[in-house]
């Protein structure tokens, strides 16, 4: 039996093609082959040996058959490959689907709003052309106040103003809604800035507002910290640990990512400048953060009692925070875009990257 097996396996291995292999089949596995003859010879054995020898022969037959099948498959594949069919150059480029691309500012707005949505903030929009009341007076910016200079607004010939910030929307919203309030208000804003690598006369902000009985600076810190964690971590923390950006993401996830510095806005009291730990160097100091380790990212503060009053809310009962983030700045940080003009240039080769 063992001899038959050795012979058969040797013949299978030596077969160079499918034709050769079928001869081997005939020689060994067919009815009249070596195995067939062996099975027939079993009848000549004494009865008590027949069972054992039969079982052993069956086992060997199965083993040979398996080896045969493997060889058959291998020779068949080799044959196909030689003919040229059944082979694919998987390194050729894929066929690009004809889809368009979402503008990076939309991607940023989408993500920001999604995060705030998940924390209970609704989305509202407000008008781009404003009047003096909503733009300045209601926001506690008196006439000829130095704070008006900061905005350097564009004025229309009919006396109205292109909003230099999204804050007027706060007042308009509070006028017709009762607290508790949680909103984010994205939109286009305008300033009299000549175009350069970091200024555009129109750009985007996202205003945030949260008002209730006891919304505090501590609450603001918590919400904003959570926002930045989610915004800059996304899936990056899960990515390749050797990747520099995931290191950033981990650092951000780890703790102290924001700091508040004193600032002044007429519509908030106290007012802060919010700095984010530099996402490029994780706070070590680099050219992007001018070596400080921090990036100035938004203005914020506790809604000034006069603003609440102007919107018809009693500041004795209600308090809360407001903030304004630059969407362009977020996009530039997130995608490492070094020139704001790229966002408004409609260059298809830029858009194709998003």
């Amino acid at each position, binding site marked *: 039996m063992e001899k038959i097996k050795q012979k058969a396996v040797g013949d299978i291995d030596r077969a160079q093609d499918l034709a050769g292999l079928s001869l081997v089949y005939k020689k060994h596995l067919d009815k009249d082959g070596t195995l067939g003859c062996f099975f027939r010879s079993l009848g000549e054995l004494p009865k008590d040996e027949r069972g054992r020898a039969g079982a052993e022969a069956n086992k060997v037959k199965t083993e040979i058959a398996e080896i045969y099948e493997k060889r058959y498959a291998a020779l068949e594949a080799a044959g196909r490959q030689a003919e040229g069919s059944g082979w694919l150059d998987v390194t050729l480029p894929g066929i690009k689907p*004809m889809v368009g691309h979402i503008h990076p500012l939309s991607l940023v707005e989408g993500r920001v709003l999604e995060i705030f949505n998940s924390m209970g903030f609704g989305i509202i929009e407000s008008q781009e052309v404003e009047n003096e009341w909503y733009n300045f007076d209601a926001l506690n910016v008196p006439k000829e106040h130095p704070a008006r200079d900061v905005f350097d607004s564009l004025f229309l010939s009919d006396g109205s103003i292109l909003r230099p910030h999204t804050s007027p929307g706060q007042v308009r919203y509070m006028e017709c809604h009762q607290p508790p309030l949680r909103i984010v208000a994205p939109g*286009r804003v305008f300033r009299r800035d000549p175009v350069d690598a970091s200024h555009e006369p*129109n750009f985007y902000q996202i205003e945030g507002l949260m008002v209730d009985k006891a919304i505090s600076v501590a609450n603001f810190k918590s919400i904003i910290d959570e926002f930045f964690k989610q915004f800059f971590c996304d899936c990056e923390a899960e990515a390749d640990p050797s990747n520099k950006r995931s290191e950033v993401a981990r650092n951000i996830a780890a703790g102290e990512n924001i700091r508040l510095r004193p600032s002044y806005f007429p519509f908030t009291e106290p007012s802060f400048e919010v700095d984010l730990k530099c996402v490029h160097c994780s706070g070590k100091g680099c050219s992007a953060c001018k070596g400080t380790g921090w990036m100035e990212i938004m203005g914020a503060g506790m809604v000034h009692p006069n603003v609440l009053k102007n919107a018809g809310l009693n500041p004795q009962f209600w308090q809360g925070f407001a903030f304004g983030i630059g969407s362009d700045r977020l996009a530039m940080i997130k995608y490492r875009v070094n020139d704001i003009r790229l966002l408004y240039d409609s260059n298809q080769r830029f858009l194709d990257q998003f």
Partner: protein
Amino acid sequence: MRIILLMLFSYNWLQTFFDKKLPEPKELAKLIVKHCFEVESMEKSGKDTVFDISILSNRPDCSSHAGMAREIAAVMGCRVILPKIKNGRVKPVLSAKSMIDVQVADAVACPRYSAKMVTQVKVGPSPKWLQDRLSACGLRPINNIVDATNYVMLEFGQPLHAFDWDKLAEGRGRVKKIIVRYATDGEEVEVLGEKKYGLLPTMLLITDEAGPLAIAGIKGGKRAEISEKTSIVVLESANFNQRSIRMTSRSLGLVTDASVRFAHDLDRGQTVEVVERLADLVAEISGGQVVAGVVDRNPNPAKPKQLTLNMEMAERLLGTDIQTARAKKILDSLGFAVKKGKKADFEVVVPTRRTDVTIPQDLVEEIGRIDGYDKIRAATAGGPILPPPVNYFWLCKIILRDSLIASGWSETRNYTFVSAVDCRNFGFDPKDLLEIKNPVNADFSYMRPSLLLNLSKNIAKNSGQEILKQFEIGKIFGASRRSEPTMLSGICKGANFFELKGAIEFALGRLGIDSCSFAPIKDDEKAMGGICDRARSARVLAGKSEIGFAGYANEAILKAAGLENVAVFELSVDALAKLATRRNDFRQISTHPVAIRDLAVLVPRFEYAQNIINEIKKTAGPLAVSVEPIDIYEGAEIAPGLKNIALRINYQAMDRTLDGREIDKMQEKAILGLEARGWKVRR
């Protein structure tokens, strides 16, 4: 013009306000950034270090070394030592009153005017230490008198001026007059530096009886300038209304160290103390004699404000516990007088220099920032978080955007601004548009009346692209500022009208608007202000309401833009949002086979396919589940003026397999219907 309080501070000078050593410059800068103001830069200057600090616009009191020292003291919890006023070497015989009189025409524009005199001065260079400090802070030393005024300004933030008393017009006896009044129209003043300014009647002047001496609060004049011969000086320490100074400074285009400070809400309580300090310094460095007394016009003295600070409110606002003793110490160190009031209240007296502090919340800010905002631990807001209401308009914009992306269109964001030439090229009269009074440049003079004006420029910008399909969602503006319609517009090159139409139909379908149709533009209608070529464009309808237009752009417009064969569309997102149902009801799928029948019909060349389809649907009945054109031919075998349209009709029933005879009958009806319209059907 932005008027910003940016100031250079000398580290060595700041050190003079303290008896203990200040932290190293780098550490000090960190403290200032954390608790007070942004330090823009820091530079070594000899043995000194100079900080460039951006003072917040509500804190003009800190545009001085004394002011900054007070902040540092509060942060470090130590004491500030201010220079003592000696009032020394007073010449007893004379008094300021006997030499000078001050008249103020408008106490609103000039709330306070204080003048003091020093006689027997010797004008010359100032001592080196003083020159060094001025240079470190970016001021050029001139002579000891002028330098002293600048020095004390940098010390206390109060702009000061010195006049040569002998050059003032003679008055009655020895008393000379200084008059603060508005300019007469066209009145001229020659200022230091040989420049002349023509003035308006809204501008405030310092004059004597002969004419202008200075532009109030902005710049001194030539006439009473300090010279080497000067021996008696009049020192001016005044307060001017910030609005008046801003307006004058702006319209003259003249910004000075004085005007920047006055343009902010400066303390009028300090003028006398500061002028006394100045007189001391002038006497000290010029060998002069201080004349006794100050002439002070101060009809409405600044009164310190009183505020009640409730500590529970403070804790609720900051969201943290505040040690009462700590709060008191912080306020004390900033110069607030604090007394315990009722229960959790403090009664706080605000020093007049703190013009920014008007409500208790302002005091909370002082406590918060000096203690450090980093001490406030983040805490989640209490109360349930409810899912916010869905903003359907926003959602609608997202759906439109995503659908267009899926159809191969890319989103862009273009300027809101357009030029007069752009407007005219697109058939808009600039007179009908919103104009910007102070545009960044002439190309940005008008508010876009259509997104297509700027979108069309993208084709030239992307000349390397064979196929370009771009869209934008944004607001457009008409002549009235009341409406700001939101539009969705697209422009494409290298794609034909039907791709564009397909993209629109798909997007509208996603919004649940299934009644979208494209109607020809009638002869008497202008296709969207003439942007489109009427014969090759359509009105886009949803049901019966018109929601926009789509088609090939007018040749004239394309020529002006150097383009050809560009298809465009513009849809009203406001209208779409109203029509969007977001409904997508499932339709039963028939399990019975479809029977396909084709026919061809000869129709006039300008017949619309939709009319033929409608006719077939009408006559063949509801089992003709679809009728679609499969080929259009005009040419050799067809009579001129006609075209052959081949159509495929699918017949299908929900409940049974249609038999041949039934189908033939329907097909016959359809043919008869077409023939009844006078069209020849080729079976």
